């Protein structure tokens, strides 16, 4: 750490910002079902997830040696390329958070990396076969595998538990959900915090500060673990709401089956060498659990928007990554421009999000709200989905609830929608 150049410092800070966004983007994976079924209070849930993420970051000593899984040629990768990749990934994470859609943080990072690499050394730097086998196939497989497992699990638990009363079993399912959510959090900490450590280490090696092949220094481990835990504790409430309430309505049994299926798929896949995205697995599991209950509905319009976001992740993050790389390559000032652009975009997205804040107080309020206020009730009535309504009506509801109010054309929006 003797001479960290300004460029390196920017890369390190950007990597930590990515880690932070990764944390709050992925809180939903572990805690959405727990929060929506009421197994844990929203705040308790995110704090528990944050602690487990932090623990997870320190648990494993095995470092992600290759951040890109052979996706791009890592030899001679420049710090500018890493910076550009991170910019693409962060922006995609923030935009999807703004519209409340779960999408894979890893895919965003890979997309940014592909884009930046193409801009830097051309298409030859990207291994197309690996893109298909490590990114595209898992993206399709994860929700299917987790979804089928969750459907069967849900069917089973309703079948053999049919004779029991809800009162007697609620506590049991609660504990079960918390346990499987805890496992997902822990696994997330080890995987994703390690990823950032790997990136920072790679940048330090690329910048000549560390010898090639060295392990991440302690300050990298501590800061990466802390960043992801802080992000998780902040809670990506918008995404939690979509995952826990938007895709389907979950009862405790379904929440338990979904989270168990997701935890199993994540652990089995990483152990058996066919890594599946956490986000995709959990989303699939939630939808599967929705289908598994008699009379359960999956809101396909929300699901479709989510699938579209998944499809756009790679190209969108890649385009931004490529653009950022092109600018950053211009020299010192280019790097500053990219850093300033990133900071400005983050602030802008945050400001837009304040128009219609979603936090721990209203995370579960897509459809149920008991406030007997004239204006508020009307506003809620306007956005409350009809019970198992038609597709058209549901699509309408989605547009109103999860897409942030369009900027200046809707002056009445902030007061009315704040409570929704």
């Amino acid at each position, binding site marked *: 750490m003797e001479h960290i150049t300004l460029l390196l410092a920017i890369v390190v800070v950007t990597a930590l910002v990515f880690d932070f966004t990764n944390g709050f983007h992925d809180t939903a994976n572990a805690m959405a079902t727990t929060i929506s079924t009421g197994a844990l209070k929203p705040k308790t849930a995110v704090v528990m997830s944050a602690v487990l993420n932090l623990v*997870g970051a320190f*648990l*494993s000593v095995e470092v992600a040696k290759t951040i890109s899984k052979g996706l791009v040629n890592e030899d001679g990768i420049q710090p500018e390329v890493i910076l550009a990749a991170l910019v693409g990934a962060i922006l995609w994470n923030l935009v999807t958070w703004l519209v409340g859609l779960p999408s894979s943080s890893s895919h965003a990072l890979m997309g940014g990396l592909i884009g930046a690499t193409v801009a830097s050394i051309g298409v030859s730097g990207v291994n197309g*076969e690996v893109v*298909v*086998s490590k990114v595209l*196939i898992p993206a399709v*497989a994860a929700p299917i*595998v*987790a979804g*089928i*497992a*969750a459907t*069967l*699990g*849900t069917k*089973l*638990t309703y079948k*053999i*538990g049919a*004779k*029991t*009363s809800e009162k*007697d*079993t609620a506590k*049991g*399912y609660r504990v*079960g959900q918390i*346990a*499987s959510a805890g*496992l997902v959090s*822990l*696994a997330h900490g*080890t995987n994703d915090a390690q990823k950032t450590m790997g990136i920072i280490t790679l940048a330090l090696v690329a910048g000549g500060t560390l010898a090639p092949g060295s392990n991440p220094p302690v300050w990298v481990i501590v800061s990466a673990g802390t960043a992801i835990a802080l992000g998780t504790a902040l809670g990506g409430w918008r995404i939690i709401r979509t995952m826990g309430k938007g895709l389907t309505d979950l009862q405790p*049994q379904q929440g*338990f*089956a979904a989270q*168990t*299926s997701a*935890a*199993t*798929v994540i*652990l*089995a*896949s*990483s*152990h*058996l*060498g*066919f890594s*599946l995205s956490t986000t995709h697995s959990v989303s699939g599991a939630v939808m599967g659990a929705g289908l598994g209950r008699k009379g359960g509905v999956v809101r396909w319009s929300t699901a479709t928007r989510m699938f579209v976001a998944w499809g756009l992740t790679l190209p969108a993050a890649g385009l931004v990554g490529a653009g950022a790389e092109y600018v950053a390559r211009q020299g010192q000032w280019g790097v500053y421009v990219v850093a300033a652009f990133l900071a400005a975009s983050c602030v802008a997205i945050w400001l837009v999000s304040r128009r219609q804040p979603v936090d721990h107080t209203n995370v579960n309020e897509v459809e149920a709200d008991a406030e007997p206020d004239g204006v508020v009730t009307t506003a809620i009535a306007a956005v409350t989905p009809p019970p198992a309504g038609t597709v058209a009506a549901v699509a309408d509801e989605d547009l109103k609830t999860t897409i942030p109010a369009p900027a200046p054309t809707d002056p009445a929006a902030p007061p009315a929608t704040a409570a929704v």
Partner: protein
Amino acid sequence: MKIDWAALGSVFGVSLVATVALVGLFTLGVIGLSKQEQAAAQGGSAALARTGAYACFALCLGAVAYGIYLIVA
């Protein structure tokens, strides 16, 4: 283009079996405990149901422990 169908298949199989088994076990445990509670409310006891429930939960706990082991390893 080589896709590791074997690995994907085993992920699918293992996930399916493990999820269904775990959810089933846990549900049996929950049912066992609720039976025990009903019996206790009526002044009796359902030792078999309770023992069975604890056995189910123990197996689930074992699965969680194995999961943590997989994360750490």
